[in-house]
Structures are given as C-alpha cells and as structure tokens.
C-alpha cells in the first residue's frame, strides 16, 4: 500500500509515477512529485518507480486566473 497526498492506494510492482498520475486522472500539466520527500523530475515520471509503502506527494501547482 502507498499513500498519494495522504490517501491510500494499492501498490503494484513496477508502478511508476506516471501510472499513479494516469490512475488518479491527474490531467493538470503543472504537476510536481515527491516520493518520500525526494523530488522526481517531470521528465522522469514515466520511468521513476514507486516503492511499496511510499508516501507520494503529487502537487498541482496553483493556477487559474
């Protein structure tokens, strides 16, 4: 099990940041991601694997206006 912004989500082997983004339908383009406090560059979302028990923050940069 992992947490995404504090909410539980089932962990799958080889799960990447992009998998989480797709599953959560986070379509906003300005996303920033931290896995257990370490940031992941946007270009690496498709390859960065998320370990089990990780705490993931997917931050939507404020926008609008």
């Amino acid at each position, binding site marked *: 099990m992992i947490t995404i*912004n504090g909410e539980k989500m089932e962990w799958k082997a080889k799960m990447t940041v992009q998998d989480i983004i797709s599953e959560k339908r*986070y*379509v906003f*383009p300005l996303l920033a991601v931290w896995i257990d406090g370490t940031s992941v*560059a*946007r270009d690496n979302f498709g390859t960065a694997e998320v370990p089990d028990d990780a705490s993931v*923050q997917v*931050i939507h940069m*404020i926008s609008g*206006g």
Partner: protein
Amino acid sequence: MEKMKVLAEWSYDQAKPLRGYTGKTLKVNVGDMTFESKDVSEDMKDKFTGGRGFGLKLLWDSVKETTKWNDPENEIVISGGPLCGVTQYPGMGKFYAVFVSPLTEQTYDSNAGGHFGPLLKFAGFDAIEIQGKAKKDVVIVIDGDAKKVQILESPFDDVNAYTVTAALHEYYGDPKDINDRRFSSVLSAGKGAETTYWGCINSSFWDTHRKAPRLKQAGRGGGGSILRDKKIVAVVVKTHDLSGTANNPADIDTLTKLGAKLHKEIITLDSKQCRMRTAGTAHLNEIMNEYHLLPTHNYKFGQHPDIDNIHSSKYEKKFSQNVADGCWYGCTMACAKAVDGFVLKTGPWMGKTITVDGPEYETAAGLGSNVGVFDPEWTIETNFYADHYGIDTISVGTGIAFVCECYELGLINKKHTNGLEMKFGNKKDIMELIHRMGDGKDDFAATVGKGIHKMKDLFSEKYGASKEIMERIGMEGQGIEASEYVCKESIAQWGGYFLSLKGPQHDEAWLIFMDRVNKQLPTFEDKAEALHYFPNFRTWFSLVGLCKLPWNDIEPADNATKNTPQEAARVPEHVQNYVDIFNAVTGKKITKEDLVLQAERVYNFQRVFQLRLGKGTRKFHNIPDRALGPVWADEWEARTEYYDNELKTEGVDPAGLSSQDKCDKLQKIRRGHWEKLVDTVYKRRGWNKNGIPTVKKLKELGMDIPEVVAVVQKHSRPEDEWKD
C-alpha cells in the same frame, strides 16, 4: 469620421517617467469641464505604491461615505503602477480601474491589458481620475504629443466598442501609415453598459499584424456602466513617446537579463506546460471538467458529458496561430488569442466578418458550460457581442445561468421573460437575451442586467419568485457574480471567493488544488495562512501594473526539484524576479517580505474603504448554499459515492436518507465550517470578529492615517474584539 468639436481643452507640462513614476496624476471632470494635475508625493508612493493603490487613494479623497455609483463625485481612476510599461519582461502592461461599483455599492478594482496603461504614463500621468457627469456624449483625449487634454463632443450614434475604437484609432493615426495607429489606445464601453450594471471597460491596442484594433477588458464590477452614466463614449490616449526605456528604469541591464531568462523559459517550456501560447487560458476547459470544477448549469455540476465539444483543442484550431498575441510589448506568453475571419450569424452585425478577442477560459465556461451550451461557435459569437455592447462576459454568463435555473424551477416563466424560453442550452433565446441587453428596450433584459443580487429582489417583487430559493442558488457575493470555478469542494476556496475584498473573483486566491487535491492545507489555520498570503501577493500585481499569468502559469524546469512542495507552489524564482524588477525599475531595495507588506497596506486600506461606504463587515461576507455544497438531489446523485463519503467523514451515516435530506445535512455541517473559516481568517488578517482591521494592525502596517483610523474607530465595538 467627422471632425470632433472641442468642448474644453487644457495644456500641460509633460512629466517624463523617472524610475517608473511621472510623479503627476490627471483629473478630468466632464461635468464642469475642468482639468487638474496633482503631484504624487513620496508618502503616497510608500503607502500606496501605484496602480490600484493610487486608484483607491485618489478615490478616497474624492468621494463621501454616502457616495453612490451614479453620483457625479464617483470616479473611475485608472493607473498602471511603476512597472507598467516595462517591455523587457512579460506581462507588464496592465492598468487597474478603481470605482464605486453599481453592483457591489463599494469600491471595486478591475484590470485590463491593452496599451492604455503604459501610454497614459508615457503621455505624462501615473493615473487619471475621471469625475462628473457630462450633459451629452463626450470623448476625452489625452494627447501626449501635443501635451493637451481635451473633452470633445462625441460624433457617435453607435457607441458600441468596436465601432468607436476602430474609428478613433483611425482618427488619431497618421493617414499615410496604418500602423501609426499603435500610438494610441482607446477605452470604451457600449450600449449594453448603459442598460445593465455589468458594463465593462474595453481597452484597445492596435494589432499591427491584423491591421485591426484588439480589445481587452477590465470586465468586472460595472466600470463601463459608470463610464456611460457619465456620458463618456471613449477615452483616448496618444503618444509617440514609446520605447523600451520610456519607463526610465534605474537598472535596465537587470530587466533585460531577467526578461531574457523568462522569455527562454516560456518558449521552451510552455508547450509542455500550460500551452498558453497556442490555446490561451482556454487550455483549462477539459482540466476543470476532469476535476469537477467546470461550472455547469449554474454551478450545479462540475462536469458534463459534452466536454469534448469545448475541448481546448477545438479552440486551438479556431485561434490564429503563430501570431505574436501579447497584449503588451514583450509578452512572449502571448495568450491574448483571437479568432480571425469569423462571420457573425446574429444581431446587428449579422453577416459581417470580424476578429474576435478570446474566448478565454472564463468566457468559454461562463458563456458556455454554465449556461448549458457546448458549442464554441456560439460562445465566440456571444463573446464578440458582449465585448461590443460593453458587457462583462463573466457576470453575464453567471447571471444568465441563474436565470436559466430560476426558469427551469418555475420561479419565472415566458410571460416574465417576454417570450424567451430561458432553459439551459437554449442557444437561440440566450443569444436573444444578450442582444436585448445591447438594444436596451426590453424590461426583462434590463432586470437581468442589474445582476443576481438585485435580480433576487426584483424577481420576487415583480414575479413572486421565492426569495429563499434564489438566495440558495444565486452565485453572487457582495453583490457581484462569481467567476467560473466550482468552489463547493474546497473550504479554502470558499474563502478565496467569498472572503475577498470585493466579491467572488479569482484574482485573490485560487486554492482548490492546494486544498482539495494536494491536501496541503489540512487545518483551518493552514487555510487562513493561504488566505492571508495569496490575496496579498496577488494584490501586489495590481499595485505595480502586472499580469499574473507569467508568475505561475509557467514555471522554471527545476521549480519542483529546487523547492519543497509548500514553497514550490509560490514559484520562488519568479517571486524573486519581481522583487529584482521592482528594485531595478524604482531604484529601491525591497525584499520579498516588503512586497507582501506593500500589498497588505493597500489590502487593509481597501477593507476600511468598504467600511466607510457602509459595507466591509462580516454580514457582507455572504456565501450562497450553492457555493458550499449540493443544494438539490440531482446534484448529489451526480456524485453519490463521493458525497456519501463526505457525510460519513462528518460522522453522519447516509444509509436510509433521501438525497435531499443528505444535501440538507451536509449544508448544515458546511455552514458551520464556513463560520469557523471566517473566524480563523479574520484573526490571521488582524481583523476583529466583525471583519474590521484593528487599529493595531493599521499601526503595524504604517497605515494609521488619522482619517482611516477614525473610520475604524467609528465602526468598532468592544464585543467584536477577540478574547483570546
């Protein structure tokens, strides 16, 4: 165009900008036909910075506590601010219009791009105050080349924006060089601004590629209605004193260096980030839909199955591409998109081929999903006519959405609407209502044009509609319609909209993602902190003449890797750019903390100003039920699982309850949260329980100006002090 007759004229010694300021303001009274120039003191710069701050200060000095929007002493004050007119860095050509609003009956500030703000400064003035009421239609001209200000008799029978703007650009341009028209800018409103309280102020720039005038809008608050109430058809500013150094900054090298870095960032990253250069703010359409934030059917829902029809890619195809669509020189963000070669299908200009400015996201949603229409062609046409008639596309969208729901609920009927079937999605009749506003003869259109706040009274008095139901569903606060985001699932955004200085507009704080999706604001104190920082930070843009979009609709590639999640949302590198730019222009040495302090001074001053005008207390921070959560069963049933969970989180078992009972229970709980939010935010802002800034707070800010303190003391009661 025939030669205009001069009614009054005044010559002036032109002050050139030095470090962002000319040090002079202009006052034109169209009632007694007088002109005046005032000095800008160092104290005025320190306390009010410029732009909206100058506007509020000058307005304060000119009105009384009893002043109403249509009294002659009410003013429209326009000021850009010290950074306005910088061309090296994107987004630096905005002006702010300040006035007592017909909708909110308190001060309102509204900004626009176009070239008026910079040209006004280069013609010699940090601000213009327009006061009085003319007896017949007039045009005001500030001619920086001839160093003359004139009030002229208007030759226009058709006062609508595109007619007036095109003619005046031609009139003041060199007949031998069409692009000489870029040295003037025109403010205008339109016929719809006369007949409604939703009048916008159109601000033009001459598009040298299209060889046509473009219109940007200070849309909100009814400034255009004041313009027309004063019988002003247009205000023209003209000067050839236009260059990249016309602002005369202290340190041009820093501006050039910072600008070059951001230009590169925008050009390389925008296509992977917000696509502002190709889709403009309409890139948000499908994103808002995905997160249940796209207002649909008067904010009942946040999603709609027809979203693909208004997907940003559809708009992208309609917008002309590869044109430098910046609304001021140097804006590589270039989001001022336009539809060229559009043939109008309705109205007085039916059959004519025109260029339409926009639609931006707010218009695509307001005159789109919120009224139940998912047809870009229709939205583009309403966008054009709203601008042309001088009507704010946000208020008219939200206002008509309210009318449609009233109609579908049976609160009003065809007899009241003079035959219009005001159902969601009825493109023909909604378009007709907008034309009737532009025509000015229809009594129902005039009633609607007074805005939701007054519509609630008028529908109840004239048609017997239930006031109680309308109070629940009318998306207005402090008298003005909400802009186009569904805020019901974010407690912080309730505040972002409804604890604002002037009513629900997204230019104070947009916190929905931070609060609801990122979960970065878990406690009421966290939300209050955000509702302190962001409104002040955003206010700063309005003091100096900036567009907000290049702050956070583009971010450096390493924004996330360099910062913590909490810091990253503030885009620290861009904030530091603004500090450096302010210092480079003015020669001062402010820090990022000073930047918030400058804003907080004006923010609190404006709050006291509202108080002086009889508003500005807790009871005016009203929020409708529709903004708090689902009102009717069908709203609940559109997201049953989600809302059932919301109830469970609040300790209520939804089992066995009807959807309507569930709505009512959640509403009651959320009303309690709202009151708690209000308390927490007021405390953080240094206001008393009644929402009034304390004298202590004013002293801390250096805003304990005797007459400001006197207003606070007059309205403060011992029982409103915090006990802890």
